[in-house]
C-alpha cells in the first residue's frame, strides 16, 4: 500500500516535469523551426539588408521587409496611443469613482468584448471605421482616400485592445489596498491627489505590464487589421495611406505563389521576425517593470 503511494507520488512528479519541459521546449522548437526554414533566405541576402530594405520584389529575388515592419509598428503605435489613455482613465473611473453596481455591470461587458473573435472587429472596421475615414475624417484634412488605411487599422486595433488592457488594469487597481489610499487622505491629500501620487504610483508595474501585453497582442493581431489596412507594400508617413503589416503578409500569401524561389522561406522569415519583435517588446517591458517595481 505504502509502496503504491510512493510510486504514484514519484510518477506524478515525473508527469509534471514532462509537462513543464514541453511548455518550455515548444517555443524553442518554434523559433528553431522558423529559423531553419528561413536560412535559404539568409544565404541569399544578409539579415540587416532583409530588415532594412524597402524593396519587395519577390520575382526579382528582392525581399525587403521594412515596409511590413514599419506598417506593423505604425498601426501598433496608433492603436496604443488611442487605447492607453482610454484604458487608464476608464479603469481609474471604474475602480475609484463609480459605484460598485457600475463595476458589476461593466466587468461582464468587458469580458464579452475581450472575447469577441477578431473577424467581428474587422467587419465593424469595414462597416464603420473605413467609411468614416474616407467620407468624414480624411476630407476634413483635404485628403482623398478609400479609407482602407493605417489609421483604420490603428483604430480597429485600439478598440480590440481596450477591453483586453482595461481588464488587466482594473485588476491592478483592485489590488491596491484601501489602507494606502486612507493613509494618503489622512495626511491631508485630496482624493485626486491620493489617486495620482499613491494609487497610480503604486500601480506602475502592473499598468506597464498590462500595456506591454496589450502592445505585444496588438503587434501580432492579424485578421482585423488585415481587413481594413489596405495591404499595399509601401512606407508612408501619412496615416491616411494604406499599409501592410507583417502578420498580414504571412496570412495573405502563405500557400500561394510558393512557386517563386525563396518565397516560402521569406514568409517563414516574416514569422521569425514577428516572433523576435514580440519577444523584444516583452523584454523591454520587463525592464520597465523591473525599474518601477523598486517601490
Amino acid at each position, binding site marked *: 500500500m505504502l509502496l503504491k503511494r510512493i510510486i504514484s507520488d514519484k510518477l506524478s512528479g515525473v508527469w509534471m516535469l514532462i509537462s513543464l519541459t514541453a511548455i518550455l521546449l515548444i517555443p524553442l522548437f518554434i523559433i528553431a523551426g522558423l529559423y531553419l526554414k528561413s536560412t535559404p533566405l539568409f544565404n541569399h541576402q544578409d539579415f540587416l539588408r532583409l530588415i532594412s530594405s524597402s524593396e519587395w520584389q519577390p520575382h526579382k529575388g528582392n525581399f525587403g521587409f521594412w515596409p511590413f515592419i514599419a506598417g506593423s509598428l505604425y498601426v501598433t503605435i496608433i492603436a496604443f496611443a488611442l487605447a492607453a489613455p482610454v484604458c487608464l482613465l476608464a479603469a481609474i473611473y471604474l475602480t475609484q469613482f463609480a459605484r460598485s453596481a457600475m463595476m458589476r455591470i461593466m466587468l461582464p461587458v468587458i469580458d464579452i468584448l475581450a472575447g469577441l473573435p477578431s473577424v467581428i472587429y474587422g467587419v465593424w472596421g469595414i462597416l464603420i471605421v473605413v467609411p468614416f475615414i474616407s467620407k468624414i475624417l480624411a476630407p476634413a484634412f483635404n485628403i482623398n482616400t478609400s479609407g482602407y488605411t493605417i489609421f483604420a487599422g490603428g483604430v480597429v486595433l485600439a478598440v480590440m485592445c481596450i477591453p483586453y488592457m482595461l481588464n488587466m488594469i482594473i485588476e491592478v487597481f483592485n489590488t491596491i489596498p484601501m489602507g494606502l489610499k486612507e493613509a494618503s487622505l489622512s*495626511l491631508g491629500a485630496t482624493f485626486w491627489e491620493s489617486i495620482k501620487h499613491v494609487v497610480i504610483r503604486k500601480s506602475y508595474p502592473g499598468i506597464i505590464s498590462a500595456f506591454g501585453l496589450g502592445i505585444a497582442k496588438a503587434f501580432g493581431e492579424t485578421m482585423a487589421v488585415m481587413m481594413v489596412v489596405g495591404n499595399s507594400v509601401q512606407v508612408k508617413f501619412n496615416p491616411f495611406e494604406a499599409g501592410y503589416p507583417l502578420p498580414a503578409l504571412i496570412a495573405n500569401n502563405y500557400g500561394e505563389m510558393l512557386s517563386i524561389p525563396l518565397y516560402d522561406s521569406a514568409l517563414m522569415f516574416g514569422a521569425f521576425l514577428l516572433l523576435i519583435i514580440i519577444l523584444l517588446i516583452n523584454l523591454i517591458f520587463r525592464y520597465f517593470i523591473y525599474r518601477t517595481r523598486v517601490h
Partner: protein
Amino acid sequence: MHTNEISMLINEQIESISTNHNIVKINNLNVYADSHQILKNINLTIPKNKITVLLGPSGCGKTTLLKSMNKLTDLYKELKVTGNIFIEDDDILHTTKNVPSIRQKMGLLGQRPFPLPMSIYKNISYGIKLKGIRDKKLIAFSVEKYLKEVGLWEEVKNRLNQPATSLSIGQQQRLCLARGLAVKPRIILADEPTSALDPISSKIIENLFRSLKEHYTIILVTHVLRQAVRLADHVVFMYNGEVIEQGSPNTLFNTPKTQKLKEYLVDGN
C-alpha cells in the same frame, strides 16, 4: 524660512495650548451600511492628552468609529453617517471647513503599515508639502525631527532615499507614525497598531505612545486586553455597535457594571 510659514508654526503652537479639556465629543453618532446599522447612538467624550482605549471584540465597530472621526467613512459610498462629531469644537460632519485640513488634525496609524510608494524621506515630506510648506530646509528639518521622535533616525539616516518598503514591518509602522506626526496633528488615531508587529516592535510603539501623550491625544483601538491595561487612561468598551461602558481603567477593569464587559474581561484574560 518664509514669514508666513513661521507665523503658521506659531499659530499652531498657540492653538495647541488652548485649554480645551475634551478634544473630541461625539453625540448620537449612527453609522448605517446598506443593510444594517454598524454604530448605534454613540455618545463619547475623549479627554485631551490622554490615551483613550477603544476596547471590544472584533466586528463591534471600533474601526468604523475611528474612521468616522477622520471622515474616512466618506470613501465608502454604502455608509451613511448621522449625528455630531466635535473635534476641537468643530462639528466635522456638518462643517464647511475643507476635509483635508480636518484630517490633518489627526494622524492615522493602521492595523498594518501602509508606507506610501515612495522613498523613506518622501513618506514624511508628503504630508508636510500638502500643508503648503515648500521650504526645503524646513522640510528636511522636520523629516529629521519626526524620524528622531519615533526613534528611527539612526536606523535610516543613511538610506533616506531608499523605498520605504525596504524597511522591516516594525520600522514601517514607526515611519507611518512619524509621517502622521509630521503634519502636526492634535490627535493620533491608532487602529490596532501593533497587531501585525513582533513583540519587540510592539513594545517600541507602546512606549512611544506613553511619551507622545504629553503632546497628543491618542485614541487607541485594541482587542488585546493586556495592552489596554498597560496603556489606557480612559477606556471605552464597545459591543455590537454600541458603547456599553466608559470610564477610568480602574473602574472598568476592577468593577465592571455590565455582564458583557464581565464576560469580555474573563475571556480576554
